[in-house]
C-alpha cells in the first residue's frame, strides 16, 4: 500500500509538485481508488463476513437464521473435533511441496540451463496441462492408479505391492494428485529465478576453486531462493486447502480439512465451517511468515 501511495510523487517533477500540492494529493487518492475498491469488495468484505460467520451462535440453522453472539467457542470446538484433519492437511501439503521441489528443481534447472533450443517446447509442456480442466486431470489419475491398470499390475508383479495391495484410495494417491496438480506452480517461479542466474557467476565460482556441486550450493541455489520461496508458497498454500484430490483419489481416512469445510457448508453448519476456514488461514499465514523470515529472501535482489 505504501508503495502505491508514493507513486504520484515519483510521477510529477519536484517543482510542479510543490506548486500543485493539493491536486497532487487528490490525484494520488484517485489513482488508488480502483485498487482500494477491488480490495474492499474481494478481500475485506469476504474476510469480515467469514470472521463474523465464525462467531455466530451454532444452534441456529439456515432456516431459522443465525444470531450474532460472538460465540468464540466455535473455534475451540471445531479445532478439537477436526484436529486430525487439520494436521493431515498440513502434512499432505508439506509432503506434496517436498515432492514438487524434488521433481521441479531439476526440471526448472534443465529448462533454464540445459534445454538449448528445446527450452520453449519444455515450457509449453509444463504449462500445457492447464488447457484441460483440473477436475478431468485429477479424475484421470483414478484411472492411472486403478487396480486393474498397468502401474498396479507391474508393482504387484515386482512384489512392491502385495497381491491385493492398491494405490488408489490411499494417502499415496492423494499426495501424488496434489504433487501433480501443483508441480507447475513450483516449476515456473523456479525457472524464472534460475533463468536470471548469470552463468558467468558460475564460471567465476569455478575459477575460485568451487567444484561443480559446491558452486551450485554456494551460488546457484542462493540465487534461486526467491523462486524456491515463491514456488513453495504457491504449492503449499493451495495444497493445504485442497479437497478435490482427497475427494477423488482418497478414502474416508484421507480426508483433509478442505473436505470437512466443504461438507459443513453443504450441511448448513456455517459457524463451524467458517471457524475452521479462519483457523486454517491463520495457521498458513503464521507458517508462511516464519518460513519467509527464515529463508531471508527480502535481502535478495
Amino acid at each position, binding site marked *: 500500500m505504501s508503495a502505491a501511495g508514493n507513486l504520484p510523487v515519483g510521477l510529477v517533477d519536484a517543482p510542479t509538485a510543490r506548486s500543485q500540492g493539493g491536486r497532487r494529493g487528490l490525484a494520488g487518492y484517485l489513482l488508488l481508488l480502483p485498487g482500494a475498491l477491488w480490495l474492499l469488495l474481494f478481500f475485506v468484505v469476504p474476510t469480515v463476513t467469514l470472521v463474523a460467520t465464525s462467531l455466530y451462535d451454532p444452534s441456529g440453522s439456515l432456516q431459522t437464521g443465525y444470531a450474532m453472539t460472538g460465540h468464540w467457542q466455535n473455534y475451540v470446538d471445531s479445532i478439537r473435533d477436526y484436529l486430525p484433519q487439520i494436521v493431515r492437511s498440513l502434512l499432505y501439503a508439506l509432503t506434496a511441496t517436498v515432492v514438487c521441489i524434488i521433481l521441479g528443481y531439476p526440471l526448472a534447472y534443465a529448462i533454464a540451463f540445459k534445454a538449448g533450443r528445446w527450452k520453449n517446447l519444455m515450457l509449453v509442456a509444463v504449462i500445457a496441462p492447464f488447457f484441460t480442466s483440473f477436475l478431468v486431470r485429477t479424475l484421470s489419475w483414478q484411472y492411472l492408479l486403478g487396480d486393474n491398470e498397468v502401474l498396479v499390475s507391474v508393482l504387484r508383479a515386482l512384489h512392491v505391492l502385495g497381491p491385493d495391495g492398491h494405490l488408489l484410495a490411499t494417502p499415496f494417491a492423494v499426495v501424488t494428485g496434489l504433487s501433480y496438480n501443483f508441480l507447475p506452480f513450483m516449476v515456473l517461479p523456479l525457472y524464472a529465478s534460475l533463468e536470471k542466474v548469470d552463468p558467468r557467476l558460475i*564460471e567465476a*565460482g*569455478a*575459477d*575460485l576453486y*568451487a567444484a561443480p556441486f559446491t558452486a551450485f550450493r*554456494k551460488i546457484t541455489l542462493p540465487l534461486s531462493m526467491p523462486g524456491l520461496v515463491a514456488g513453495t508458497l504457491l504449492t503449499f498454500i493451495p495444497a493445504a486447502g485442497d479437497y478435490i484430490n482427497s475427494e477423488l483419489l482418497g478414502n474416508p481416512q484421507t480426508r483433509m480439512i478442505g473436505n470437512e469445510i466443504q461438507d459443513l457448508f453443504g450441511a448448513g453448519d456455517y459457524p463451524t465451517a467458517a471457524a475452521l476456514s479462519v483457523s486454517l488461514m491463520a495457521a498458513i499465514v503464521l507458517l508462511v511468515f516464519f518460513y519467509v523470515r527464515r529463508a531471508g529472501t527480502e535481502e535478495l535482489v
Partner: protein
Amino acid sequence: MAEDLTLTSVTKSFGAFTAVDDLDLTVPQGSFFALLGPSGCGKTTTLRMVAGLEEPTSGTIALGDADITRLKPYRRPVNTVFQSYALFPHLTIADNVAFGLRRQGRKDVDARVTEMLELVELVELRKRRPAQLSGGQQQRVALARALINQPKVLLLDEPLGALDLKLRRQMQIELKRIQTEVGLTFVHVTHDQEEAMTMADTVAVMNEGRIEQMGAPEELYEAPATTFVANFLGQSNLVSGKVLGPDGSVLRLDVHGARIDAGTARARVTDGDVWVGVRPEKMQLSDPGEDFRDGDNVLPDGEISDVSFVGVSTQYLVRMRWGQELTAFEQNTGARRRFRVGDKVDLHWNPDHTFLLDASQDASAGAVVEDE
C-alpha cells in the same frame, strides 16, 4: 623458468571458426604481460583457456613443469578478474573476497580478507553488497577476490573496459603498483593499446588468432614487424617504395621519385618493393626547398590539406603529389611556425626512424579498429 606460463601450439576452434591458431607463447614468472588485439582476435579465448574455462582443441598449456591443459578450472592455481567482474550479488564484499580461500579450506580467512581489502582501500565497505558499489569499487573487489588466493598467474580480462577514462588511468597505475608489490605474473587482455603500453613489460599483439609481434612496448612501437602492428599500435604513415640497395649502414630507397635512406635495424625486408613507415610525430614540416637538417630524409612537394589543433600538438594532413595523405604531429612548443591549409611544405624525418615492411601486407590492416 620456474613458474613460467607456456603455451605450445595451442589451437582453439569453434566449429569451422578458428579463434586461436597454433599459438606459442611464454610468459615469464613475475612479469606484467599484455595480450593486445581488436575484438574477435582470440585474446579472450586464449585467456579462458589458461583459466580452464575453455579446453584447447590441440596443443598444451604448462605452468612451470606442470601440464595444466586438461586441469579443471577449480584445480588451477590461476585466478581471473572478469570483464563483467562477476561478483556474487548475494554475498557481502567481505564474503566475495573470502570465497576462494573458503573453498580451499584455508585458515585465518578474516585476517587475510581485511589485509586484502586494505590493499584495495575498501575496508569500510566490507559489509556492503556489490550492487551498492560504484564501477571502480566493484573492479577493486574483483581484483581483491582474485589476488587474495595468491595465484601463480592472475588473468585480467579487460577489467578496466567499463570505467570512464579518468578512473581507468587511475586504476592502470594502481594495478601496476599492486603487481610490483605482490610480484605475481599478470596476464592482461585488452584492446586499448595505450593501456597495454602503459602497464605491461611485454606486449603481444594478436590478430586473427595469431601473435603478430611480441616485445617491449617501445620495441613494438618503434620497430613494428607488420602493417597490422604499425597501424594498431599508434598511427603510421605507410608509403610504398623500392629498395635500390645497401650503402654502408643504411638502405637507399626510391619513394615516388624521391631518394631516402632507412636504417637497417628497423628493416623487415631489405630488397624489392616495401612499405616505408614513419610515425607521425617523427615527421616535421618545412617550407619547400628549405635546408632543414643535414642527413634528413625529405619528401618534397606536399600541400597541407587539414590542420587540427589538439592542444599539446597540432596534427597536419599533407597531400602528396601521388594523392596520398600523410599525417604529421608537431609539438606546440612555440619554437616553430604554424602552417595553414594550402601551404606547400616538405616533409622531413631522421632516416633511423624509418621502418620497412613487407609490401605484400595490407597497408590499412589494423587501422580501422583503432577507435572502436
